[in-house]
């Protein structure tokens, strides 16, 4: 968990300097840091909750019956 926090801090700092050097609009800052925040929460929750549902569970739930029907 500590690793994730450190990792994201590095990412945050790096992107901050990148955006700053390129003189981006404020909107870009919001979007980029919003996405970084969302990624951070997702990464953290995968570590904290071991059985958190992932997109693959969703795929399995939706498509497994279909495939079963096709293949008989």
């Amino acid at each position: 968990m500590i690793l994730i926090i450190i990792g994201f801090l590095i990412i945050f700092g790096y992107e901050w300097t990148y955006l700053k050097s390129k003189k981006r609009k404020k909107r870009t800052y919001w979007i980029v840091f919003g996405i970084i925040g969302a990624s951070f929460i997702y990464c953290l929750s995968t570590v904290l909750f071991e059985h958190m549902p992932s997109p693959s569970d969703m795929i399995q739930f939706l498509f497994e019956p279909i495939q079963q029907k096709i293949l008989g």
Partner: protein
Amino acid sequence: MKTEQITQNQLMLFFILYYYSTLVGFAASQLIYLSQYDSVLVIYISGIAGVILAYFVIKLATRRPNEFFVHYGSEILPKWIHIPIMVFFFVSFLQISGIILREYEDFIVQTYLPRTPNWAVGCMFGMVVAVTARLGFENLFRIAQGLFYLVILGNIGNAIFIGKELQWDRWIAFVTNHSGQGIFIGSFQTVPTFGEVVILLFIFPYLTQKHKTLKSIMWATFFSALFIGQNIIWLLLLFGPNLSSHLTYPMIEMIRYIRIADFIQNLDHLLISIWATMVFLKVTVFFTISVQILAHLFHLKDHRPLTFSLAAVMVALSINTASGTAELTSFLYQAWAAFLYFLEFIPFLYLLVDTIKQSNKKNKIGNKLKT
């Protein structure tokens, strides 16, 4: 910004590696299990299916050759349908890259680094993917161009050195042993892999000489089917269908057969490293497309600031996907193909609606002219 940077030659070489990488490395065992001696046939059927899909994708893309699908899609379908579909594409591509990454992690951890946790391998790999994605498509395809010769050299060397170990008297089985059910199930599972050509829709604006795209894809499919087929034949002649399908990674077992003058005992590490670069390319292209879709959805100027955070998500996805290799394999076997079919048929929907809309427009103009 100049977008047209990928030459047709680069595209072709890239697609050869793109098909070859996972099919040979991860899917060979399952394919042989499903269709035995028909596997080669299945590869060719799937290749043809891939080319057909590519034809339609290119047809859709050439209508607006210099625009990005994320942008012009909303002209075809209403915005409230288009945007969720794009979000779906974004998540799916990220998930696909995550799954391939997971397969790779499992492979490395099981065969080479038994005491290393999955996430460590994933993080290393994810970092490289993020760095490459940051450099954009032009460099990605250039990387493929350089790697291609290395890969082909490795493959040819492999084929020659193993040649003498093969049991050639098995070849008759390729003529005699056929099963309709095997071909059907095998093709059902393998067609989506060639159907991954759907990424063309997203990289189309970057291509030069766009009219040659279909030809390049056809050649790429032909060559990759040739290489994959050769590897599968070698596997079948070396191990036979039963043993091949019960090994987790039959390719690596095959490479371990190589002995060069008793100097290098196991060449597998080297060849696996070369092969791993192909997997890396495949993961990166899916990841880059996914990042780019997100950037386009938010109308950002470039996708660079998103790469590292999304790479972290990709690594998290790869670990979160399944708790173990068994679960992953069953997931891939039971639901993955249907999911990919769904994903790959979305362009057809766009093409259909666009064609109807255009013919309607023509009719309207025609009617107006008449009246």
